[in-house]
C-alpha cells in the first residue's frame, strides 16, 4: 500500500492535528478572547471528522484496504465506530466547557486545542495495530489529559487531581512499556499480526509476563480494578467538563484499544488473559458498587459508577467472541449517552450565584424545584441501574447474553447479582430528589446548549432508545466483524 493511500486512511487524524496546530497558533495570537470560538471551531472539525469516518463504519470496511503505514494503523469499521463515539463525547466536552470555566475566569484558549490533541491520540489508539503506534496514541492522549485534569490551576483539588493522574499514569505507562518490550523480546515483532502469529502454540513465560503487563497498563486507562484507585480522586478534583470528557472519550478509546490488543494481538492466547479479565470485570463491578455507597459527592459517585460500568463492559470482553465485542460496543454507546446525561445534569446544578453544586444532599427535593432536571437525572439513574424499560437495561442485557452464549453462565449470574448492589445507590439519588424535603440549593439557570444535550441524552436512554437497537446492533456487528476479520 502506497503512502498516499495511507494518508487518505488517516485523514481524520490529519485534519484534527492540523486544526489543533492552527488553533494553537490562533490561541497564541488571539489569547483567551478566542477560547469560545476555538471550542466552536473544534466542534465543527469533529463534525467533519465524523463525516469522514462514517463510510468506513457503514460499509463495514475491513481487510488489507484499511491498513495504513505498513500495518501501523488500521482504519476499519471497528476504529470508525470507536472514533464516532469519541468525537461525539469530545464535542460534548467542548460545548459544556465555556459556561463552566468563564464563571471563574479560567476559560483558556488551550482547552479546545488540548481536547483536539487528545482526540488525535485516541484516534490513533483505536486504530493502532502496532505496539509503537499504540503507545504514541496513548501518550498523546494522556499528556493532554494530565493538563486538562489540572486545568483550574488556582484550585487545589484540580491541581491535586492532575498530579495524581500524572504520577500514576506514568507508573502505568512504565508497566505498559515494560510489557511491550517483553512481548517484543519474545516474539521479535511489534505488529499485532506478527505477535499473534508468533504466540500461536505454546506460550513462553516471558511473553506471558509481557501480556499481563500490557493488560495492566491498559487496565489503568480504563480504570478497571485494581488499577482504578486514581479515578474517584481525579473525577472529583478535575473540572466537571473535563470529568465528563474523562468518563466518556478516553474510556471508549482505551476499551477499544484493549479489545484490539486482546482479541487481535493476543487473540491466539485467549486462555491466558481470559481469567484475568474475568477477575477484573467482577472486581470492578463489586468495588465500583461498594465504593459508590456512602459517597456524598455526585461526581465521586459517578466515578465509582464508571468503574462499575467498566466491569460490565469487561464481561463482554471476557466472552472473547464477536458477539461479545458487538455487545461491548452497544454498551459503550449507551454508557456514553448515560454518562453525558448524568454529567450534563450535574453541570446544570448550580446555586443562585452559579456556583456548581456537587453534594448529593443538595439535590434534596429537586423534583419540586426543578422537575424536568430531576426527571432527566432520575432517568439517568434508573438507566445506569439497568432497570427496564430504560435503555441502560439493553446494554447490560446484550453483554450478559453474549457471556451466556459463550458458556459463562456463572459470570453472568454473579454480574447480575452484583448489579443489584448498584441499584441501591442509583435509586438512592432518585429518593433524595423525589422524597426528601427540598434543600432549595439548586437555583441557577442553564443555557439552551445544556438543555439540548440533556434532552438528547435523556431521549436516547428513554424507552425510545429501543427504536435504535436494530441499527445500533447492525453497526456494532459491522465493527466486531472487522475486528475479528484478521483473526
Amino acid at each position: 500500500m502506497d503512502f498516499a493511500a495511507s494518508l487518505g486512511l488517516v485523514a481524520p487524524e490529519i485534519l484534527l492535528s492540523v486544526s489543533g496546530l492552527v488553533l494553537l497558533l490562533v490561541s497564541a495570537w488571539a489569547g483567551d478572547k478566542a477560547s469560545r470560538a476555538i471550542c466552536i471551531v473544534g466542534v465543527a472539525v469533529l463534525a467533519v471528522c465524523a463525516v469522514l469516518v462514517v463510510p468506513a463504519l457503514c460499509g463495514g470496511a475491513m481487510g488489507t484496504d484499511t491498513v495504513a503505514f505498513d500495518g501501523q494503523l488500521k482504519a476499519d469499521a471497528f476504529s470508525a465506530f470507536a472514533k464516532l463515539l469519541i468525537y461525539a463525547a469530545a464535542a460534548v466536552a467542548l460545548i459544556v466547557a465555556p459556561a463552566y470555566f468563564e464563571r471563574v475566569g479560567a476559560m483558556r484558549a488551550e482547552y479546545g486545542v488540548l481536547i483536539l490533541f487528545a482526540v488525535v491520540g485516541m484516534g490513533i489508539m483505536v486504530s493502532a495495530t502496532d505496539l509503537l503506534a499504540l503507545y504514541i496514541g496513548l501518550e498523546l492522549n494522556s499528556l493532554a489529559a494530565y493538563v486538562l485534569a489540572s486545568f483550574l490551576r488556582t484550585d487545589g483539588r484540580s491541581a491535586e487531581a492532575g498530579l495524581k493522574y500524572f504520577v500514576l499514569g506514568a507508573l502505568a505507562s512504565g508497566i505498559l512499556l515494560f510489557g511491550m518490550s517483553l512481548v517484543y523480546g519474545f516474539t521479535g515483532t511489534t505488529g499485532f499480526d506478527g505477535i499473534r502469529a508468533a504466540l500461536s502454540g505454546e506460550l513462553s513465560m516471558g511473553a506471558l509476563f509481557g501480556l499481563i503487563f500490557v493488560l495492566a497498563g491498559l487496565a489503568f486507562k480504563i480504570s478497571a480494578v485494581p488499577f482504578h484507585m486514581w479515578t474517584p480522586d481525579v473525577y472529583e478534583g478535575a473540572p466537571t467538563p473535563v470529568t465528563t470528557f474523562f468518563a466518556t472519550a478516553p474510556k471508549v478509546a482505551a476499551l477499544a484499544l484493549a479489545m484490539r490488543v486482546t482479541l487481535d494481538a493476543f487473540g491466539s492466547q485467549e486462555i491466558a488473559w481470559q481469567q484475568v479479565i474475568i477477575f477484573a470485570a467482577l472486581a470492578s463491578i463489586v468495588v465500583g458498587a461498594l465504593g459508590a455507597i456512602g459517597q456524598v459527592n455526585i461526581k465521586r459517585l459517578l466515578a465509582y459508577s464508571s468503574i462499575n460500568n467498566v466491569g460490565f463492559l469487561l464481561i463482554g470482553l471476557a466472552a472473547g467472541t464477536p458477539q461479545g465485542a458487538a455487545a461491548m460496543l452497544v454498551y459503550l454507546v449507551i454508557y456514553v449517552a448515560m454518562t453525558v446525561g448524568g454529567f450534563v445534569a450535574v453541570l446544570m446544578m448550580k446555586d443562585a450565584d452559579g456556583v456548581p453544586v456537587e453534594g448529593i444532599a443538595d439535590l434534596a427535593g429537586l423534583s419540586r424545584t426543578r422537575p424536568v432536571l430531576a426527571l432527566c437525572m432520575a432517568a439517568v439513574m434508573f438507566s445506569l441501574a439497568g432497570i427496564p424499560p430504560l435503555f441502560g437495561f439493553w446494554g447490560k442485557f446484550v453483554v450478559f447474553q453474549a457471556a451466556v452464549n459463550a458458556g459463562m453462565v456463572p459470570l453472568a449470574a454473579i454480574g447480575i447479582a452484583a448489579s443489584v448492589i448498584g441499584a441501591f445507590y442509583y435509586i438512592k439519588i432518585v429518593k433524595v430528589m423525589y422524597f426528601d424535603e427540598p434543600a432549595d440549593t439548586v437555583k441557577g439557570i442553564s443555557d439552551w446548549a445544556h438543555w439540548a444535550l440533556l434532552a438528547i441524552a435523556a431521549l436516547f436512554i428513554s424507552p425510545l432508545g429501543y427504536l435504535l437497537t436494530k441499527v445500533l446492533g447492525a453497526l456494532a456487528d459491522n465493527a466486531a466483524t472487522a475486528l475479528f476479520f484478521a483473526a
Partner: protein
Amino acid sequence: MSSILIIVFGPLLAAIIAGLGNRAIGNVPAKILTTGALFLSCALSWPIFLSFVAGTAEASVVPVLKWVQSGTLTFDWALRVDTLTAIMLVVITSVSALVHLYSWGYMDEDPDQPRFFAYLSLFTFAMLMLVTADNLVQMFFGWEGVGLASYLLIGFWFKKPSACAAAIKAFVVNRVGDLGFMLGIFGTYLVFQTTSIPEILAAAPGMAGSTIGFLGMRLDTMTVLCLLLFIGAMGKSAQLGLHTWLPDAMEGPTPVSALIHAATMVTAGVFMVCRLSPMFQTSDTAMMVVTYVGAATCFFAATIGTTQWDIKRVIAYSTCSQLGYMFFAAGVGAYGAAMFHLFTHAFFKALLFLGAGSVIHAMHHEQDMRYYGALRKQIPLTFWVMMAGTLAITGVGVMGVFGFAGFYSKDAILEAAFASGSEHGQLAFFLGVVAALLTSFYSWRLMFLTFWGQPRWADSEHIQHAVHGHHEDLDEEASHSEHNSHAHHGGDDGTAGYHPHESPWVMLLPLLILSVGAVFAGYVFIHAFIEDAGFWKGAIFYNEHLMHAMHEVPLWVKLSPGVVMLAGLLIAWNSYIRNPKLPAAFVAQFRQLHAFLYNKWYFDELYNFLFVRPAFWLGRVLWKQGDIGIIDRFGPNGAAWAVAQGSRYAQKVQSGYLYSYALVMLLGLVAAVSWVMVR
C-alpha cells in the same frame, strides 16, 4: 331480561358504586342506591316465591356467562331458580332490604356509612349467588363471598381491637369448615366427574354403597362426601365444635348481626344440606351424624343462653340453638321442616336482633341486661315488637287455631324427629324438647330483665357517660335555667336521670314489618312447606312417608313443646319477676354448673389450649428462629451487612495517598502475574 338477574346483580352494582364512590358520592346517595337496589330485589323476589307457593312456577336456570372449560371440568355462571331458591330469595332480600333501611337510623352517626352499606349490599349479592348456584363451584364462590363480607362487617369498627379479633376468629374458624367443603367439592367432582348440582343429585343414588380411599382407609363414598360437605355446613352455620366464632361476631354492628348472623349467612349450611338432600339421603351414617350434631348444638347453645348477660350474646346462642333444630330436622329427613324453620326463624330472629339493636340504641350502646329494666314504658313500640319475636321463638300457639311463627315450624321439627322412629331421631326429639324449655326460659328471661322490674341503668358506664357528656353541654348554655337540670339528679330511682327514648321511624318500620312476619309466617305458609308435596317439585328430597307419620304421633308428643314453653315461662317469671333474688341463690348453690355454662362450656379455653397456643408457638418459632434467625440473617440482612462492610472497607482503602494507590496497582499486577504463572 330475566328478573333474577336484576335481583342478584342489582345489589352488586350498588355495592360497587357505593363502595368505590364512597366519600365522592356522599352518605345519602350511597344509602339511597344500596337500599333502593335491595328493595327492588325484594319486590322482584316475592312474586317468584308466591308463584311457587301457588304452584304455577317451574324450576328454571338462567345462564349468565361461560366460566371454566378445561377437559372434563366444565361449569358456567348460571342462576338456578326453584322452590328452595325462591324461599331463600325472599328471606334474603326481605331481611336485607329491611336491615338496609334500619341501618339508616342505627348507623346515622357513623362516619363511614357508604362503606357499611356497600359491604351490606356486597354480602347480599354473595348470598344470592350462593342460593342461586347451579354448580358446586359457584356455590363455593358465594360461600366464600359471604365469608368475606361477614369478615368485613364484623370488623367494620376496625379501630376496636375486639372487633378485629372477632373478625379474624370468624374467618379462621370458617376456614376449617371451608377446607371440609372444598374437599367435599373435590371429592364430588372426582366421583361424579361434574360439579353440576342437578347431575350430581341424579347420579347420587347410583353411588350408594360404593367405597372410596380416604386417608388410607376404604370408606363408603357417599358417607365421606356428605360428611366433608357437612363440615363446611357446620363451619358456616356455627354447629357444635365450629360454633365459637358466632358469639364473638356480635362485635359487629347490630344490623349486621341481624342480617348475617341470624337470618341469612348462618343458614347457608342448612340450605346446602337441603339442596344436596338426595345426596345425604344415600348415607345413613351421614344423616345420623347430622342429627346428632344438630341436636347436640341445639341443647348445648340453649344451656349457655340461659346464663349470658349480654343481650346480643343471648340472641346469638339462641340462633346457634335454632340452627341445631334445623340440622336435626334435616338429619331425620324432614328437609321441608328444616327449611320452614329457616324461613320463620329468619323473620323472628332478625326481629329480635333489630329489636335488641333498638334497645341498645336507646341505652347508649349498653348491652348488659343487668343495666336494663323497666324499659317497657320508655320504649313501648320496641317492647311490643320484641314481645312478638319472643312469642314467635318460644312457639306460642293453640293447636288448630292460631300460633306464632315458631309454633308451627318448631313443632313440625319435633314431630318429625319423633316420627322418624330411629334411635337418633328419638334422642334428637328429647334434646329438642329440653332445648325448647331452655329457649322459653332464656327468651323470657331476656324480656323480663329488659322490660320489667326496676330501672337499673344508673351504674352503667355507657349511660353515665351519656348523662355526664350531656350534662356538661348543658352547663354552658343553660346554667341559669335550673328547671332543665333537675332531670339529671334523680339517681335514687336507678335511672341516674337518664330517660331512654324510642328509636326513629326508619328503625321502627322494619321492626313492624318483621313482626308481621314473626306473627303470621308460620300460619300462612305451613301448608305449603310441610303438607304440600307439589310445592317442592323435587327441589329437596321429599319424604312422603315421614310427612304422614308426623301427623300420627301421640298427643303427648304434640303437646310437649307447648308444655315446656309454659314451664320455661313460669320458671323465668318466678326467677326474675316474683322472686328476683332466686337466680343469685341458684348460682351460689350450683356455682360450678353456672361457671361451666357461663364460660360457654369452656370451648374457647379448650381451643386456646389445643390449637391457638400451639399455632402461635409454631408461628413464633418459624418467625423468630426460621425467618429472622436464618432467612433474614443470612439473606437480606446478611447481604446488606456484607455490602455495608465492603463499602466501608472500600472507602478505607481509598485513602487519597498516592503511594497507597500505587501499591494497590503493583499488588494487583503481582497477583495477576502470580496467578497466570502458577495456573
